[in-house]
């Protein structure tokens, strides 16, 4: 079969490059996770008001922050793929989506775990939790749309448009949920109401960095699989040592 090489040139070189980068991201993420969790669980002091239960926020806060950040990055990649017609950026967008959904889910789960001792209920209609839930829906919509379309090109372009519409909507949704929450006098509890201890800050930042590196490592691994899947008919994929084996 004839192959238009010019279009596939970029993914082939990218594939090799990220193959070398992934171990670095993965290892540094793992080490930082260990350090962060150690500081978080053994060094940081017990909180005066919240007791030991507050320690879940060392996972909750990084996952919440990153779940929103990853959505924006994903929408950015998707938009790039749509506007400049670069296949690789669309692949990056679809590689980021499951990780983003996982982060949103973890953030909800840890939020519920934290909420039980704090509020006495697994779920409270707090503005942040509600927005996080909507964010999870947006991720699921993106993934579902991509899964429903067989033609990868249409899937990329359609889900890119959805991601852009979603990212325009995210601030509106967040604002409206906040507005709704204040009207109904919901139980918004501030996480960082008390001044944070230095060790808490260290643990938080280490965990944030670790999660970030985890996101990079995992999405790069996933984008490698996506590249292999989409380019399976090309010569360079058949020539790869891991494929010919």
């Amino acid at each position, binding site marked *: 079969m004839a192959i238009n090489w010019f279009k596939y040139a970029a993914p082939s070189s990218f594939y090799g490059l990220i193959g070398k980068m992934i171990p670095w991201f993965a290892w540094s993420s793992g080490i930082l996770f260990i350090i962060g969790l150690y500081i978080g669980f053994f060094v940081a002091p017990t909180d005066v008001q919240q007791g030991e239960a507050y320690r879940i926020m060392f996972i909750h806060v990084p996952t919440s922050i990153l779940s929103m950040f990853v959505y924006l990055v994903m929408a950015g990649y998707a938009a790039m793929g749509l506007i400049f017609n670069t296949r690789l950026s669309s692949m990056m967008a679809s590689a980021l989506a499951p990780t983003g959904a996982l982060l949103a889910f973890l953030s909800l789960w840890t939020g519920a775990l934290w909420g039980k001792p704090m509020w006495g209920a697994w779920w409270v209609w707090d503005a942040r939790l509600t927005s996080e839930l909507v964010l999870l829906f947006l991720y699921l*919509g993106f993934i*579902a*749309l991509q899964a*429903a379309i067989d033609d990868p*090109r249409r899937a990329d*372009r*359609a889900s890119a448009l959805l991601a852009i519409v979603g990212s325009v909507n995210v601030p509106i*949704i967040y604002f*409206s949920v906040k507005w*709704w929450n204040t009207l109904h006098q919901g139980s918004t509890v501030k996480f960082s109401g008390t001044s944070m201890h230095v060790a808490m800050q260290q643990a938080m930042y280490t965990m944030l960095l670790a999660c970030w590196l985890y996101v990079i490592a995992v999405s790069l691994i996933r984008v490698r699989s996506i590249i292999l899947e989409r380019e399976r008919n090309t010569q360079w994929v058949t020539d790869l040592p891991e494929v010919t084996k």
Partner: protein
Amino acid sequence: MNRLSLFGLLGLVIRRDLILAMRRRADVLTTLIFFVMVVSLFPLGVGPEPDMLRKMAAGVVWVAALLASMLSLGRMFSADYLDGTLEQMMLVPQSLSMLVLGKIVAHWMVSGLPLVLMAPVLGLQFDMSAQALWILIAGLLLGTPILSMVGAVGAALTLGLRGGGVLVSLLVLPLCIPVLIFGTGAVDAAITGMSVASHLLLLSALLLLALVFTPWVTAQALRISME
């Protein structure tokens, strides 16, 4: 031969879709009956205490309206897609966005407006006060067009897909949350004696925003889906 102006095109598309809807009245009625049915199910589910019903009336009507408008979204483009008319629409020399706007307006008149007109009757079932009813209607009048517009984007993206009907709800419902919040918030504010204007103004702002962007976005989505 006279060239058709932009507004001529808008009028033509609206008229066409209305005629088609009139000749397929059953479709319109199904949505409306669904709406009435969902709203009537709530008292059966939660019990007939008037106090509670009054409190939840606006929310129930809004959620039912949201679900009902999702039902009709599948029809917005699919019939035209199947018989090839959509291909001809993509080749319209004036502006595809304008044509899409026409389809959205017609869709709202057929599936959104009946819901607005039906809402007061349902509000009475829930013993809403006259003032709250008026605010509910005003909110629905501003909000249901937004549902049609955001829905159009979803309908265009899921054109011709397996299970498109469920998928479109999955995509569109989260995006409609602000409309739900401001719409029900307005009624709550009216009941508790707070200012209603801010909610309705925010809804109007959303309506304007949607009016400016969604026809264009839908046109792009159609181009993607037709490929």
